[in-house]
């Protein structure tokens, strides 16, 4: 392995000689601070997520370029065929593609966790005397920022292309808020898969297998009334359908109470089931 000199910087090598006085200073035991609250520990972990974005900004590619491509591609691909014009289609389609893109991005939570575990840094986190879910909650809170960013990017592209929601600023904020709450809850599905699957690649594979049917077999692209009965049954039960309905309603300045209730139920269920499974797995190893 390499020696002590930082060759990459080309600076003159400096050799570290441990000094017993300096070590004595840092080793003198002080009073131990009280352990941080669950909230504070979680926020510290989300600070870590932000630092990682700062150091590896390339990882924002999937929350910027990917959503832009999705909006442009489908608006012009389907717009003329499914509505009078791409611009008309966009009024129906934008909330849906926003949901699709953000929900697809949630899978990176699992991929990121899997990488972290592979690298070994989670071994240290797991030996810390902090609230156990903090590392994962913090990670997902960091990811929520990415969801917001993706939603804003899509909204901006939509507005440029002519999306004019009736709900105004408040409606848009409410729509993005619903989407972010659901995505936070949905991310726990991926933390679970990130923990149980062997590699980053298999996490990606499983995520795609779940996400493609879930997002496409919904009311994102077309009105479900044209679909065969058995497919309508699936679409009606699909949480993505409820999410799209409630986001569409919010952005249009109305409220879809039944869809919103379903979103609350689904979100609570994802956290209860997959949050528990995740923590069980996280503690068990």
């Amino acid at each position: 392995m390499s020696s002590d000199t930082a060759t990459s910087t080309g600076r003159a090598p400096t050799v570290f000689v441990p000094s017993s006085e300096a070590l004595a200073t840092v080793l003198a035991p002080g009073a131990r601070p009280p352990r941080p609250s669950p909230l504070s520990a979680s926020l510290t972990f989300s600070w870590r997520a932000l630092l990682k974005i700062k150091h590896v900004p390339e990882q924002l590619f999937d929350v910027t370029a990917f959503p832009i491509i999705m909006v442009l591609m489908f608006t012009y691909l389907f717009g003329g065929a499914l509505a009078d014009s791409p611009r008309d289609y966009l009024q129906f389609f934008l909330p849906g593609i926003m949901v699709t893109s953000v929900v697809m991005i949630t899978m990176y939570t699992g991929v990121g966790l899997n990488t972290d575990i592979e690298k070994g840094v989670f071994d240290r986190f797991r030996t810390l005397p902090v609230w156990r879910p903090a590392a994962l909650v913090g990670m997902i809170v960091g990811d929520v920022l990415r969801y917001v960013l993706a939603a804003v990017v899509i909204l901006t592209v939509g507005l440029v292309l002519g999306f004019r929601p009736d709900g105004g600023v408040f409606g848009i904020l409410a729509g993005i808020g619903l989407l972010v709450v659901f995505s936070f809850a949905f991310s726990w599905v991926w933390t679970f898969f990130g923990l149980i699957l062997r590699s980053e690649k298999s996490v990606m594979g499983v995520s795609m297998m779940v996400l493609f049917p879930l997002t496409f077999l919904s009311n994102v692209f077309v009105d479900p009334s044209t679909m065969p009965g058995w497919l309508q049954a699936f679409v009606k039960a699909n949480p993505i359908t409820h999410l799209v309905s409630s986001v569409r309603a919010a952005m249009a300045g109305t409220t879809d109470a039944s869809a919103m209730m379903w979103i609350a139920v689904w979100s609570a269920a994802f956290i209860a089931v997959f949050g528990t499974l995740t923590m069980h797995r996280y503690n068990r190893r």
Partner: protein
Amino acid sequence: MSRRTTGLAIEAEGLTRSFGETRALAGIDLQVPAGAVYGLLGPNGAGKTTAVRVLATLLRPDGGHARVFGHDVVSEADAVRARVSLTGQYASVDEDLTGTENLILLGRLLGLPKAAARQRAEQLLTAFGLTEAAGRQVKKYSGGMRRRIDIAASILNTPDLLFLDEPTTGLDPRSRNQVWEIVRAVVAHGTTVLLTTQYLDEADKLASRIAVVDHGRVIAEGTPGELKSSVGSGTVHLRLRDADQRPEAERVLQATLSVPVQLEADPVAITARVGGDGSELDAGAQAALALGELSRAGIVVDDFSLGQPSLDEVFLALTDHPAVPATDERDDELEAAR
């Protein structure tokens, strides 16, 4: 204020743990006294890492139990975590973050307020000679620097027990010496250290007691002196001028020393263990005697050295099988746990 602890830091009884078909721990018993360095010595795959991971609350044992400062590692894991730190064999800091950020992150997680966490980070970086690299991402650090930031992170809260899993594997000799200096300082300040290593000389230099681990069991335990004298305190390495004389040299050595003699792969090399329990002479005197006899027999010795027994030789003596590196334990674990 001193947190020096007396008594036992670790008591483990019959710890077992399997990963699928692999039996990583086959009933480990350990009694680690507080306030000193305790060495777990063994080849790759012997079960050292698994033992550390069980004791550090990262892994549940299948059977047996273990207490750290009196707290059970399974039922009182949180109390154990409050008193231990782990520097794993793999990077246990975030490689994407800088040295400073890593230490602040951990300081905050241990409950330090922001300003205090920053101050503590700077203090540690200075003491570990990492001030210049403080703002650089850890993935750009050299092997030795990475080990130091890892250990700095582990002593952030001056733990009562520090696990160091193969802290010098893969380091150059100078970085290894630096780590040794740090370990000595850590222990001098009252922290107990459980050190795993594949190198007998490392365990010898640092540990006051050593447990030799093989196939998930402790096969020998004692002070370094006790272990070595059970094996023979040294090894004579000889290189002959003429390979044809080796069978004769082997006969002479066996007759003179009455110890096992080993023929090396190099056709002129031959080694013998000296200074064992049964001998009246010390290793040096035995070696001198052997050289004299060889010379009398007309065998030309070009090169000669007297060294400590290697881990391989300790293993050979204790188990009758060489310390063959098995597969990596953590890989087994990652495989099996998923």
